[in-house]
């Protein structure tokens, strides 16, 4: 094969503009408008890689996305690189570098790798989407524009150099989904963007994807120089590139007549046309030391065989309409003997989708076709004789492999595909699929139509994960939610943790402090003086309407209808299965209005839960629930000195114990701004939660800092919050609970009303929820007070035989910390029949040791709740 650029011709290239590029380290030139494949051929590069398993030299076979051999890694001038591209679909550009991947999709990082590229996605809404800008597609688009001039018509085409009125070039439809939703990938939509994923919603879809030529299988059919006939014409017509000098055509249909004419026009000598319809076949090929085609073994109708010298063998076994997109949308196929191919089983549109042109089976110039799939080995059929009859070039799969699969008893084309891997390569069997079906059908003695083809699935061409991720990566991978106080946290050295999408300060280390030291200090301050935290992420729901009290009675296990205006109550809510869904403090704002709080991570879940019951079960209740999570910034002021600090912030409010007792709330002017003050505590200490509209949040924080400065007020993070609440055995939903825990399991049975109905009540009476050996929340004290058990550690009985697997488990650690207040480590755990085991020793077998611990009551600090109203200061 001696390919070269012709002196004239080439509808897609601009001969005035030279393009410099590199391939496998060689500096080459091409022309503007070239594909990488056409530029390689123009440079006489006929071997573009070696095959994946058999290490055989391979050349360019096709001119479009069906190319099975010319897989390349491309480094763009932008500094990004991308693997697994087909050279036939890469538009040449100045400075582009490419490497052969030798059949392997290696994820090599060249330059900045794929991560250096910009990939994005974009939505489009059109009345008509035409896929494929060939003659049929262009006609369909023109007709649509003419019929309704105002309508949006989008015309896309895979070829990077496709031209025409409004065509979006280099854009390949990946799949058709329900309701006219189509995804497509566009290469190089702009100089700064490597790729774009289109999400198109189309009123109507015209599939004009054309047809893909298929090979005929014969011995040594994989040599560089063996090419699909139509591809040769494409290289000549579009790119002015002649793929060889002495050509043989092997055909079974009329489309090669035009190819022959094109070759003659390009000055390629057409040595012979081997026409299957006349009983002639190509039985094999000859090659030089490098494996390149040098000759074609032709068997004539009279039984004679001759080797014909040639550097180009152009094969056409017919054309397969590109029906993958049609089948994505649920369209069915039938085998049409008139063209020896699978076609859509109906003419005209199926719903909103129509297939036109060659994709519908209208193969121009096909003429009478005699089915030709395979030429037996010259020496007659034998296992080894089939070893060089390549079915799938990308997978190096041969007819011998197909025979082995059939001999193993496989018959379904889906099973044959998986056993042989034929059609599973990056080209998804675009050239091999139907041929394989036909040969399998012949061996099985069935009709091709009965055997069928393997299911086509999106995407139609490989798409990189970088492209699918588009801009959702790095800092934009997922929204980072921050509170109004975030600027202060960041400026003051907070170490953050992710809580769902929220960034929350985990602790505020001082210079040189470790995490443990910082958390211990923050806890100590909260228990001895005063500390503050940003509690804004807490979910907040406004519940409003005359039936609000009734509604909350049904939602919570305990009673809220009796709560007085101005008061707050801790509530537990369960799902219908009786398991704890969430907890929080809810306050009565007015007779017909409550302010509910939820766990940070559960705010949306709880609102959905409320809406579901209101909308589906109790539509008669006059209640509305509105998320106000982000309306309010919440700052908790915690510790024995909290009252003194808060009194400075709310001078008009009487904050004395008598006037403003625990579990009440007041409207107040906080540092000059209207807000709400709640006397609730998540630490057991005297505490206030100050709420102001979000845009005042940062100023509130700074005002609290200023008011507390004289008391050494200290900000604390989520870790100290966890320790403080665990010392009081306040559960965290999602940490102490996992969807299998009832209020009774948590030791909160007193909060479960026996006088009213509520969601989950019936389930609490199920025998399984009454078992005495259910896992119950207890405290756990390691015998070594310096040792902090890992959360998640399993607990077993002290006499458990650790050598006998499985070891019966008693439960697991849910929370575990070092405690400044207790002067030792402690943990919470869910343990089978835990309350019966209080005082007993258990073992925690860890990776490197087994730790002894004692089961205790869960509330380890201030069990008599003496501190919540503040303590006398020395």
């Amino acid at each position, binding site marked *: 094969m001696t390919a070269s650029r012709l002196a004239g011709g080439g509808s897609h290239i601009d001969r005035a503009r030279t393009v410099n590029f590199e391939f496998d380290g060689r500096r080459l030139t091409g022309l503007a408008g070239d594909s990488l494949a056409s530029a390689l051929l123009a440079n006489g590069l006929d071997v573009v890689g070696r095959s994946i398993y058999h290490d055989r030299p391979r050349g360019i076979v096709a001119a479009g996305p069906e190319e099975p051999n010319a897989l390349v890694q491309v480094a763009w001038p932008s500094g990004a690189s991308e693997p697994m591209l087909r050279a036939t679909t890469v538009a040449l550009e100045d400075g582009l570098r490419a490497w052969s991947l030798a059949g392997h999709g290696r994820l090599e990082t060249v330059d900045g790798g794929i991560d250096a590229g*910009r990939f*994005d*996605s*974009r*939505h*489009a*809404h059109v009345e008509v989407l035409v896929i494929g800008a060939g003659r049929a597609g262009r006609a369909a688009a023109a007709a649509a524009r003419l019929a309704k001039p105002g309508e*949006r018509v989008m015309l896309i085409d895979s070829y990077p150099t496709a031209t025409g009125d409004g065509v979006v070039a280099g854009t390949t439809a990946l799949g058709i989904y329900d309701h006219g939703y189509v995804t497509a990938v566009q290469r190089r*939509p*702009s*100089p*700064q*963007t490597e790729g774009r994923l289109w*999400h198109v*919603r189309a009123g109507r879809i015209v599939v004009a994807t054309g047809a893909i030529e298929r090979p005929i299988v014969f011995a040594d059919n994989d040599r560089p120089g063996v090419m699909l006939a139509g591809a040769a014409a494409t290289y000549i017509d579009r790119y002015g590139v002649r793929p060889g000098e002495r050509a043989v055509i092997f055909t079974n249909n009329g489309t090669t007549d035009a190819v022959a004419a094109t070759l003659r026009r390009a000055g390629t000598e057409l040595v012979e046309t081997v026409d299957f319809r006349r009983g002639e076949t190509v039985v094999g090929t000859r090659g030089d030391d490098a494996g390149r085609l040098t000759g074609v073994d032709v068997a004539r109708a009279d039984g004679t065989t001759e080797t014909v010298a040639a550097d180009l063998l152009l094969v056409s076994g017919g054309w397969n309409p590109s029906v993958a997109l049609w089948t994505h949308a649920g369209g069915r196929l039938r085998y049409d003997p008139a063209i020896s191919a699978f076609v859509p089983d109906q003419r005209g549109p199926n719903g909103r989708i129509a297939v036109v042109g060659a994709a519908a089976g209208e193969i121009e110039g096909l003429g009478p076709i005699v089915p030709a799939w395979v030429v037996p080995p010259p020496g007659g059929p034998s296992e080894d004789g089939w070893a060089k009859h390549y079915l799938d070039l990308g997978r190096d799969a041969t007819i011998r492999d197909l025979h082995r699969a059939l001999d193993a008893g496989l018959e379904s084309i889906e099973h044959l595909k998986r056993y042989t891997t034929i059609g599973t390569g990056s080209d998804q069997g675009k050239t091999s699929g139907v041929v394989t079906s036909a040969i399998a059908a012949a061996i099985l003695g069935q009709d091709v139509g009965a055997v069928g083809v393997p299911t086509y699935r999106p995407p139609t061409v490989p798409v990189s994960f970088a492209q699918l991720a588009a*801009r*959702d990566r790095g*800092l*934009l991978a*997922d*929204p*980072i*939610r*921050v*509170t*109004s106080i*975030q*600027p202060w946290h*960041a*400026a003051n050295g907070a170490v953050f943790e992710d809580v769902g999408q*929220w960034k929350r300060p985990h602790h505020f280390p001082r210079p040189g402090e470790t995490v443990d030291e910082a958390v211990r200090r923050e806890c100590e301050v909260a228990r001895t003086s005063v500390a503050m935290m940003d509690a804004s992420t807490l979910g907040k729901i*406004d519940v*409003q*309407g*005359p039936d609000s009290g009734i509604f909350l009675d049904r939602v919570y296990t305990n009673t809220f209808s009796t709560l007085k205006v101005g008061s707050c109550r801790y509530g537990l809510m369960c799902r219908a299965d009786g398991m704890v869904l969430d907890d929080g403090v809810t306050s009565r704002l007015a007779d*017909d209005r409550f302010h509910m709080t939820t766990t940070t991570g559960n705010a949306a879940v709880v609102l959905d839960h409320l809406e579901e019951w209101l909308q589906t079960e109790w539509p008669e209740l006059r209640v*509305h629930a*509105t*998320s*106000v*999570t*982000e*309306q*309010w910034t919440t700052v908790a002021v915690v510790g024995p000195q909290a009252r003194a600090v808060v009194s400075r912030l709310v001078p008009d409010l009487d904050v004395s114990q008598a006037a403003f007792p625990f579990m009440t709330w007041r409207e107040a*002017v*906080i*540092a*000059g*701004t*209207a807000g709400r003050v709640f006397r609730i505590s998540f630490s057991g200490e005297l505490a206030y939660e100050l709420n*102001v*509209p*979000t*845009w*005042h949040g*940062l*100023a*509130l924080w700074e*005002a609290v800092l200023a008011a507390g400065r004289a008391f050494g007020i200290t900000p604390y993070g989520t870790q100290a919050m966890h320790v403080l609440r665990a010392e009081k055995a306040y559960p965290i939903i999602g940490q102490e609970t996992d969807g299998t825990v009832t209020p009774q399991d948590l030791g909160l049975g007193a909060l479960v009303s026996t006088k009213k109905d509520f969601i989950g009540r019936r389930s609490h009476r199920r025998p399984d929820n009454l078992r005495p050996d259910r896992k119950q929340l207890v405290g756990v004290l390691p015998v070594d007070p310096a040792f902090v058990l890992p959360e998640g550690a399993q607990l077993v009985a002290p006499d458990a035989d650790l050598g006998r697997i499985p070891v019966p488990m008693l439960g697991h650690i849910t929370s575990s910390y070092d405690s400044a207040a207790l002067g030792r480590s402690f943990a919470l755990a869910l343990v089978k029949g835990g309350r019966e085991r209080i005082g007993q020793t258990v073992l925690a077998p860890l990776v490197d040791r087994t730790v002894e611990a004692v089961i205790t009551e869960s509330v380890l600090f201030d069990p008599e709740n003496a501190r919540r109203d503040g303590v006398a200061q020395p």
Partner: protein
Amino acid sequence: MTGGGLLAGSGPGAGSGVLSGGGLMARSPLDGSIVSPGVRELPSQAEMSLRELPFLAQVGLRVDPAHEAAMAAVADVLGVRPPTVPNTALITEDGSGQVLWLGPDEWLVIGEPGTGPALESRLREALNGAGSVVDLSANRTTILVSGPRARDLLAFGCPIDLDERAFGPGRCAQTLLARANVIIVPVGPGPEPAFRILVRPSFAAYLAAWLADAALGLE
């Protein structure tokens, strides 16, 4: 108290996203240092203006549209009857606000900055217990996206059809912009496309960063 200039390029604290008066200073979510690095400048080819409209009053209204007396009382307050056609918006009588349809019994009333609490009181009084009224002024901030390429910019991340014929002035939608829940309200008629994007404050920095990044993709 017009729109803050943060995204239009003014420096920190220079925009009117800061409101001071008596009491605690108010800062709008995008007027500070919380915006991700590199989003303050837009590429010149973007032909785009992004700016925050801080502190707009927003009041959530829930009422059964079949409750004739309540709807009439609400209409008295707003000067316009809340729209019952899904995803539409009406201008209030004095032209200063908008009523957005969010659900069969749910609306969001938008007003001038500072008017939220008063609007909440008047609507609650008008409803007389027949529904729910909540001041949500601080629950979302507003980003104004305007310019000839505004639709192209939003199309990078918004799945709905933003074409003027499908989504012109008088419409509104609750949808996604990138990965943030937003309410989008086309503004107009005007010389060039413009959209108000209502987003919760915790997502505002993310969305501002996303918008600025998306503008880099406009060719």
